[in-house]
């Protein structure tokens, strides 16, 4: 093993790290912002409003992320009308196609996570809110969503980590993220072990950063829900 090649090619990895971080953060933010209203409609909306959301979630959870990205990147690029449309300046960029695929994918999973958390709101809290005379919107804003977010956090932190790891697929559409950097180094020096191990370590650092912050959020928001024994261990 010769890790001097990693030292030499550190700038490539650093650029890759930056790309991975912003792709992940942007995808998660866009995905979550879309997912919250969709989840609310999915729980409280009429059957007609629910149908398209169900279909969207069904498609994006039912197909691999790689296929979704290839459909958007290579698939749409095939059509003449797409190439002539005003949107083409966006769709011709690899980063946009990747980000769109990631955001929609994480959105679909987040809808399900948040929907589950909303459904699990205890009926007592809702009854109490009604008894206080809250409107539906106010009840949603003050009672249902805050408690749903707390319940959703552990599952959503998993989704964040999955999304981080999912961005590795961006390297298949010419984006040089951490995995893309590793592929360059691998084929430049014919040393896959060092190249991919470095990438793995970088992903691990990012994953533990996410885990660390989610832990703090969990303690802050749902300390009262944690069983006493768990906090003894920590």
């Amino acid at each position, binding site marked *: 093993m010769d890790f001097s090649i990693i030292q030499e090619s550190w700038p490539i990895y650093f650029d890759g790290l930056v790309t991975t971080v912003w792709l992940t953060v942007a995808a998660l933010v866009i995905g979550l912002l879309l997912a919250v209203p969709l989840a609310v409609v999915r729980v409280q909306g009429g059957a007609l409003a629910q149908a398209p959301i169900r279909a969207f979630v069904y498609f994006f959870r039912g197909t691999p992320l790689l296929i979704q990205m290839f459909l958007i990147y*290579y698939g749409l*690029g*095939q059509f003449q009308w797409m*190439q002539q449309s005003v949107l*083409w300046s966006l769709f*011709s960029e690899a980063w946009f196609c990747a980000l769109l695929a990631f955001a929609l994918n994480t959105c679909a999973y987040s809808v399900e996570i948040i929907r589950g958390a909303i459904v699990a709101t205890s009926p007592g809290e809702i009854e109490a809110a009604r008894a206080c005379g809250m409107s539906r919107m106010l009840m949603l804003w003050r009672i249902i969503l805050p408690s749903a977010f707390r319940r959703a956090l552990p599952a959503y932190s998993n989704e964040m980590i999955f999304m981080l790891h999912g961005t590795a697929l961006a390297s*298949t559409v*010419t984006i040089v993220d951490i995995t893309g950097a590793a592929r*360059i180094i691998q084929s430049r020096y014919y040393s896959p072990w060092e190249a991919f191990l470095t990438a793995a370590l970088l992903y691990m650092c990012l994953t533990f950063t996410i885990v660390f912050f989610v832990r703090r959020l969990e303690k802050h928001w749902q300390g009262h829900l944690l069983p006493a024994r768990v906090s003894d261990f920590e």
Partner: protein
Amino acid sequence: MKKIAVFLCCFFLALSFTTASFAKEWKTVRVAVEGAYPPFSYIQPDGSIEGFDIDIAHALGQAMGVEIVLVQQNWDGMIPGLLARKYDAIIASMSITEERRKKVGFTDKYYQTPVKFIAKKGAYTNFTEAVLKGKTIGVQRETIHDKYLTAQYGKDVKIKRYGNLDEAYLDITAGRLDLIIADSAALYTGFLTKENGSDYEFVGPDMMDEKWFGEGVGIEVRKQNTKLAEMFNKAIQTIRANGEYKKIQDKYFNFDVYGK
């Protein structure tokens, strides 16, 4: 101990005889070909093997006045099979490289396809290096073409690197790339002669700077068979001179594959 010594003596004696017998006149030459690199060599539906390499092998055999026996061999076992005397020469589009030179002897090149750009037909009628400025160029990642492009034009152009050329072909038809740089034979058979590549053409000069792209493709023989290598060299000159080479070239390509 003595027995072993006697045995070894016999062994080396026998070995020297075999070496001596190989210095004989060549009547038949067994040639390894690959069969999975169109149009240089490929298997026909009926199982026969055809292609540029195969035609060249037969033409060279004729020029040398020897019988050519083709042996089909997969790529990974090519050089080991030669060293194990399963055949006497390799004609399988193998580039002349320093690493291979340590193992085998090379003849002169028998073809050297230039590296070229492709672009949409008519987009670059007056091609100069200046028109490349600001263009997006696709290339296969970490190939000699990638290294060349990065070193020569890296500052002025946007380079997109692909795992294989098929992905680059998709992106140039989608309009994401202005040009692709690669080996001209690969571009020609992989894209330009295909249906979705019909709107594209070669542009710019033939690039074959030895510093970047090596010395071309040669025939491999065992190192000690220098006589066979010489025979091949002479035969290459013969078919170059008598028009046989051009006839074979024109069967597969519409451009010069020999280079300078």
